[in-house]
């Protein structure tokens, strides 16, 4: 009884002590993307005293607009590495103080030294999660998963193929199929003719993860491009699909957590980012379906049969990945024109 009382007092004292330093930090992220998990935020508040409020964006452009128009409103923001240089260039985000993020030591150096996250010569985004855009096959139609991206052009799957209705993704996908660097496509003509050959194979385009799952469940598709995180969710949900990283390679993306230069709560923001790349948080998040963690220690802490360890944990697979770099407006427009032209010709 007495010890209970003592404990309670001690906890109260500690929490009061913590409260004195408590800040309310505002996080800008996609909705439902890790940082806003109830249990994670509650644990963080309990451990540090800082409370967390979320705000959401629906596109990278919207995120940048929010940072531009509301200086001081946000303390942590999720930025895809392909957009970090732009945010840094516009002075929207500040450098990260690595000494305040203990878990950064467990992130492999190739990610910490990623060219885009280190825009302006300093680390401006802490590598958090990464994933792939590759493809998945319906295991009812394949006794063994294919190893080559050429399966999309295999005539026996005519009318059973799908890719996402997105110009950039389509062009980069064809760049991989034609053996080009997705960030420096020299032969756009080859990309165009490769996609033109693909068109008759396509049954429909998919737009969202939900679309994709429905088409696969109905047996409309045998092989379709897909995102690694979504594939892991679909497999967990029991769809007969298998994610493939072909020998030709795959498109990779990397998300980082950054701190706006206008944030007045730098310490709390650093603490939150440290919390987010902690293995303890990641392992629990992965149970609910998370992308791959940038933290090597977190990745190896997963059970051996976990999707992110089984497929994305293989260093040979990672070596085949081409990470997306920023795309200039000029190229973006060129790709869009190419893709729309191909679609209109159908």
């Amino acid at each position, binding site marked *: 009884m007495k010890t209970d009382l003592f404990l309670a007092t001690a906890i109260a004292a500690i929490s009061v002590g913590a409260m004195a330093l408590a800040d309310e930090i505002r996080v800008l992220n996609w909705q439902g993307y890790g940082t806003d998990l109830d249990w994670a935020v509650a644990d963080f508040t309990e451990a540090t005293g800082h409370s967390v409020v979320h705000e959401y964006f629906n*596109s990278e*452009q919207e995120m*940048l*607009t929010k940072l*531009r*128009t509301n200086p001081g409103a946000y303390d942590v923001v999720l930025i895809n590495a392909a957009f970090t240089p732009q945010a840094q260039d516009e002075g929207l985000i500040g450098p990260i103080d690595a000494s305040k993020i203990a878990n950064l030591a467990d992130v492999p150096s190739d990610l910490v030294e990623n060219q885009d996250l280190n825009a302006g010569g300093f680390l401006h985004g802490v590598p958090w999660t990464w994933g792939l855009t590759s493809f998945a096959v319906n295991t009812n139609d394949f006794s063994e998963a294919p190893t080559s991206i050429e399966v999309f052009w295999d005539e026996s799957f005519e009318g059973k193929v799908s890719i996402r*209705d*997105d*110009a950039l993704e389509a062009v980069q996908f064809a760049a991989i199929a034609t053996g080009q660097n997705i960030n420096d496509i020299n032969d756009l003509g080859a990309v165009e003719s490769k996609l033109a050959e693909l*068109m008759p194979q*396509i*049954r*429909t*385009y998919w737009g969202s993860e939900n679309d994709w799952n429905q088409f696969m469940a*109905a*047996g*409309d598709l045998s092989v379709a491009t897909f995102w690694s995180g979504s594939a892991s969710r679909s497999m967990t949900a029991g769809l007969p699909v298998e994610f493939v990283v072909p020998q030709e390679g795959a498109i990779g993306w990397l998300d980082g957590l950054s701190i706006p230069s206008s944030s007045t709560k730098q310490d709390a923001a650093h603490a939150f980012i440290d919390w987010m790349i902690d293995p303890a948080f990641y392992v629990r998040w992965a149970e609910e379906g998370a992308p791959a963690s940038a933290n090597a220690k977190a990745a190896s802490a997963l059970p051996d049969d976990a999707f992110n360890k089984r497929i994305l944990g293989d260093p040979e697979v990672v070596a085949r990945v081409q990470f997306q770099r920023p795309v200039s407006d000029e190229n973006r427009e060129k790709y*869009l*024109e190419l893709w*729309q*032209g191909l*679609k*209109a*010709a*159908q």
Partner: protein
Amino acid sequence: MAVSLVNRDRLRILGLLSPAYIWLTVAIFLPLSAMLYFSFLSDVPFGDTEWAYTAENYAAFFQTSTYATLLWKSIRLGFTVTAIAMLVGFPCAYVLAKVIQGRSREAMFLLVILPFWSNSLVRIFSWAIVLRGNGVLDLGLNAILPFDVEVNLMFSTSAIVIGLVHSYVPYVILTSYLALQAIDDNLIDAARSMGATKLTILWRVILPLSLPGLLAGAVLIFVPVVGSFMEPRILGGRVGTYYGTVIEDQFVAVFNWPLGAALSFILLAVVLLILAIASPVLKSAQT
């Protein structure tokens, strides 16, 4: 005295008209003007992006053949859907107006209106369930027929046409019904007493008299079908790229509002042009 009467009339007219016209101004004219303004900008004027006035968005239409090809494809779709809807809707309206009476007519009418009470997206997704291979239609036919058939209309132009006709056929039925109902039965009896065959009656009496209603229905359908984007996207799959879907992409996917707005106004201009060309026919039908 006479002057004040005219004034009072004017006030009454103003009072009756203003709710509709104020509503139209606020809900249609203002957003449309904003879109017209957008269509002459170089970038979306949100945040602190830099923008300038330009006519480039309109020029973009002519720089590639993509947009013109798609516009032509959409116009063809508009004609096809309108023609099928007229063929399906007019006989139905005739039966409703002239053949059946009383309660059963009410019930039949309800069945025509019923689709209007559900959300259009729900209707299109139900079609997707029916039309796909291994779907309701496929399973149903195979259960009845002694031989195996494979029905997989999903993701084809036919699927788009089926979905659109279903969505819009009630317009033709309603407008034709009103016109057919206004035809005096004595006229038909008179024609019959003079020895006209059924076909002659239809061709010389019923069709000319109900033409204004039929054509009004056709115009009501044609305009939204040319700009449709949801039905082609969901039911059309690979062949479902139309002018409307490209406009939608500009707003939703690539965030190029000015180009989307310019393409919309080009569509508006083309549709108005088609209606203007058709107007002599439409006008003669009304007299």
